[in-house]
């Protein structure tokens, strides 16, 4: 296991991380050695897959079949609110970024804040830092443990490399871990064997030049395949509601590789890496100085960069059993003149899927994550301590039990996690699925999930403003995190019905009722005299707390109607209601209102896909989003359309129009943040792709 340690020593300049690695390396070694011992015993047991073509048809009809990947249930069988964006959906959509693509998911709340920022979540608590939605790319979490949320600007994967995006609404904590409270998004990229040859794409429009991408895939015969890619995008700044420039240009340069190799008939190895750098600006109201007290609205430029490396070893032990061992390292830095954060993440994850007897299908796994961050204090944002190392240990198991074959399935799962902030956590889940026939399915589930404290909840202080006070003493207005911040907890009850009513019409409906407790509140603090930072000043502070509880409920409806063989209509509707209350003793004065009014109560969508003659495809989507009272956003209807022409086998041309109905409308505004949001522009965009 020296290699793990050596890897750190070579690659990591961060001292505190190194020191800690020495400390934990013994434990990691034990863990990793155990994994290796467990796996090393297995090759002797493996055998060549028999040639099935030598069997007679009658024999083949007696074989019990299994799906190779761990429990990759098709959407129609899953006892959860699942929506999958397929590769076909992606190429048809005309979307320019991943958040754009997510708009099509019924029940997801996607609102663009400015050129490079989005607020995305399911089932409430939306915001720029939506802290209850877990997002993963090829098994690597992109949820930041610093602020709790996802930086969509730095995580754009080239859309042409995505195999599918699985979106689960509702808790997935029993399998995916803490923070999968309101939903999970899994972005899965294509196997390198599927992206052979060259690919060049370029696009331009009034909103900027995006997705200029280049990709090349090659192979080493039977051993495996690889691809390398690079992507650049630049979206222009949008005006703010005052009509002035929002200084929110979004730029990203992104490059990486993926290699898929076959080690033996039973073993495959995926290795992928990515490096990126970019920046995204904003107009924000920040304290400039304390003496004299000056607070001003300035243009900030959030610069970010990072790299990551992941490797995953899949082993098919038998048709009834497979394992995967995944290790990744991720380094990311981000900051503007008012804050600076660097974060190193090391993660190791082991999973084992096994069928036991004829009735049980089990997945269990173990995980360990080491996060080490370093921050630089500024007048606006301070983390105390500046640097912190945290560890996460997790284990989970889920058992799908067949009660009546093809009719009734029970699934029980639970995860035990240990994090350094709140200690041990237990997240159970149970679901029942009834399929009276092949066309109908009814399911119900009860699950528990935790949102664990972020570094900000625990250690953070933001000075919002510096203003003149009495007797020439400056006043600093602050929000401060607290070391005793607890987990926010959800108990979720949901049920769904899916039906293929006719060969041309299918529906998917879900109802849910969620109960939250220990929800984040903002509690007023007392006014105090503070000497640091100098000069002596008055501190008017508020503190984060767990002072709220609440309930949400809602309905999510989605249908697919094949009007004609070349025309598909997909309507969707979401109703959502939320009530948040303070516990006795809480004096919350902003959080509850922001939560309640930050998610639309009605959302509706209609998507149309038409295949036209001459290799043309025309898609149009209409989204209605009701008003957001907490952030003063009026209701809006958004119409996007794309026309795609496949000019022969290798070239395709797309014309995309977005926000066609109305120019310059806002979709979201940060309620508690002092950042100005952008007005969405009517836009046209042309893109050409060439594969060879």
């Amino acid at each position: 296991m020296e290699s793990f340690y050596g890897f750190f020593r070579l690659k990591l300049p961060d001292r505190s991380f190194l020191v800690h690695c020495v400390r934990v390396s013994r434990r990691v070694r034990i863990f990793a050695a155990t994994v290796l011992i467990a796996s090393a015993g297995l090759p002797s047991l493996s055998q060549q897959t028999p040639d099935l073509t030598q069997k007679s048809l009658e024999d083949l009809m007696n074989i019990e079949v299994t799906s190779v990947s761990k429990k990759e249930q098709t959407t129609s069988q899953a006892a959860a609110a699942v929506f999958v964006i397929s590769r076909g959906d992606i190429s048809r959509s005309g979307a320019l970024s991943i958040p754009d693509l997510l708009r099509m998911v019924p029940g997801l709340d996607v609102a663009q804040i400015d050129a490079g920022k989005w607020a995305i979540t399911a089932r409430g608590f939306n915001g720029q830092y939506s802290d209850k939605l877990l997002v993963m790319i090829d098994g690597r979490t992109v949820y930041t443990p610093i602020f709790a949320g996802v930086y969509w600007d730095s995580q754009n994967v080239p859309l042409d490399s995505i195999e599918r995006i699985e979106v689960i609404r509702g808790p997935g904590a029993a399998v995916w871990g803490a923070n999968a409270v309101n939903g999970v998004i899994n972005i899965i990229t294509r196997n390198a064997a599927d992206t052979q040859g060259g690919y060049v794409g370029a696009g331009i429009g009034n909103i900027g030049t995006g997705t200029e991408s280049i990709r090349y895939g090659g192979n080493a015969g039977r051993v495996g395949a690889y691809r390398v890619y690079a992507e650049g995008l630049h979206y222009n700044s949008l005006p703010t509601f005052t009509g002035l420039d929002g200084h929110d240009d979004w730029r990203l340069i992104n490059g990486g590789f993926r290699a898929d190799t076959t080690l033996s008939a039973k073993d495959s190895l995926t290795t992928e890496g990515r490096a990126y750098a970019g920046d995204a600006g904003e107009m924000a109201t920040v304290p400039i100085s304390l003496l004299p007290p000056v607070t001003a609205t300035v243009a900030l430029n959030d610069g970010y960069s990072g790299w990551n490396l992941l490797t995953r070893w899949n082993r098919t032990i038998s048709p009834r059993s497979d394992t995967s061992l995944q290790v990744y390292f991720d380094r990311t830095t981000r900051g503007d003149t008012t804050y600076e954060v660097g974060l190193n993440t090391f993660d190791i994850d082991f999973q084992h899927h096994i069928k036991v007897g004829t009735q049980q299908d089990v997945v269990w796994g173990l995980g360990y994550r080491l996060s080490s961050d370093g921050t630089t204090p500024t007048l606006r944002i301070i983390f105390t301590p500046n640097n912190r190392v945290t560890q996460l240990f997790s284990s989970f198991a889920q058992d799908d039990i067949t009660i009546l074959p093809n009719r009734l399935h029970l699934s029980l799962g639970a995860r035990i996690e240990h994090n350094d902030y709140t200690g041990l956590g237990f997240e159970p889940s149970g679901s029942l699925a009834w399929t009276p026939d092949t066309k109908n399915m009814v399911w119900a589930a009860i699950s528990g999930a935790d949102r664990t404290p972020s570094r900000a909840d625990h250690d953070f202080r933001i000075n919002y403003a510096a203003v003149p006070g009495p007797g020439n003493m400056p006043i600093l207005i602050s929000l401060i995190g607290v070391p005793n911040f607890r987990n926010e907890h959800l108990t979720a009850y949901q049920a769904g019905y899916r039906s293929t009513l006719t060969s041309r019409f299918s529906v998917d409906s879900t109802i849910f009722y969620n109960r939250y407790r220990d929800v984040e509140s903002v509690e007023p603090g007392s006014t105090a005299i503070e000497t640091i930072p100098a000069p002596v000043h008055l501190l008017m502070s508020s503190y984060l707390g767990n002072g709220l509880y609440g309930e949400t409920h809602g309905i999510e409806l989605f249908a697919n109607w094949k009007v004609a063989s070349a025309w598909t209509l997909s309507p969707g509707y979401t109703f959502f209601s939320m009530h948040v209350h303070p516990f006795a003793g809480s004096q919350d004065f902003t959080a509850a209102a922001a939560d309640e009014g930050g998610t639309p109560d009605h959302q509706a969508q209609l998507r149309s896909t038409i295949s036209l003659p001459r290799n043309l495809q025309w898609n149009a989507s209409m989204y209605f989003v009701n008003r957001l009272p907490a952030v003063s956003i009026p209701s809006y209807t958004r119409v996007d359309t794309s026309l795609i022409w496949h000019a022969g086998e290798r070239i395709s041309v797309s014309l995309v129009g977005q926000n066609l109905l109305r120019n310059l409308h806002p979709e979201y505004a940060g309620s508690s943040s002092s950042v100005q949001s952008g007005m969405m522009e009517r836009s046209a965009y042309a893109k050409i792709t060439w594969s060879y």
Partner: protein
Amino acid sequence: MHRELNNSERKTGRGRTYILVLFCAILLGSLECQPTCAQNTAEEYQVKAAFLFHFAQLVEWPAGALNASDQSINLCIFDDEPHRRELQNTIEGKPVGVRVMHVRLLDQRQNIQGCNMLFLSRDEGRRQAAILRSVHDLPVLTVGETDTFLADGGMIHFHLDGDKIRFDINAAGADLSHLRISSRLLLLATSVTHANGIGAGKESYAH
């Protein structure tokens, strides 16, 4: 505050040790029951590939439909077919009488010229009808999996009976393409639809 931190650190330290011990215990205890678990099981799409191989043997193409020069039977799948590797690994290069089976990958817009068989897995759903319409009178044996596959004009439809693979045949569709399906295959099918749209004396399947 310092005291609190120290306390919590000591507590979390104990938790870590506990969990590490748990990890190792579970890992070591979980070694496979594999030799005894060896049953008559195989991966779904490898088995389906073997079925496709048998279909190629039990279907007769009209004269001239098979390329006389290259001695191959081409099974076409789309290049984004999620199970392409299982299909390729199982049947690529396997002899079918005097011919050889090849798996050909199609771009989304690629002409299906040269395809003798076409397999659409369940993920093809939305573009399935258009594809099937475009080949409905060509000598291409179409095999698929979605509920609407036969209604859309496909010829052989896979379905699962529990964990076992079964298939239905739309003989009318095959007739239209002048493909002759052997009686052996028709006998093994769960249901056979003829031109009048009525099942040929077989009970319609329920699963």
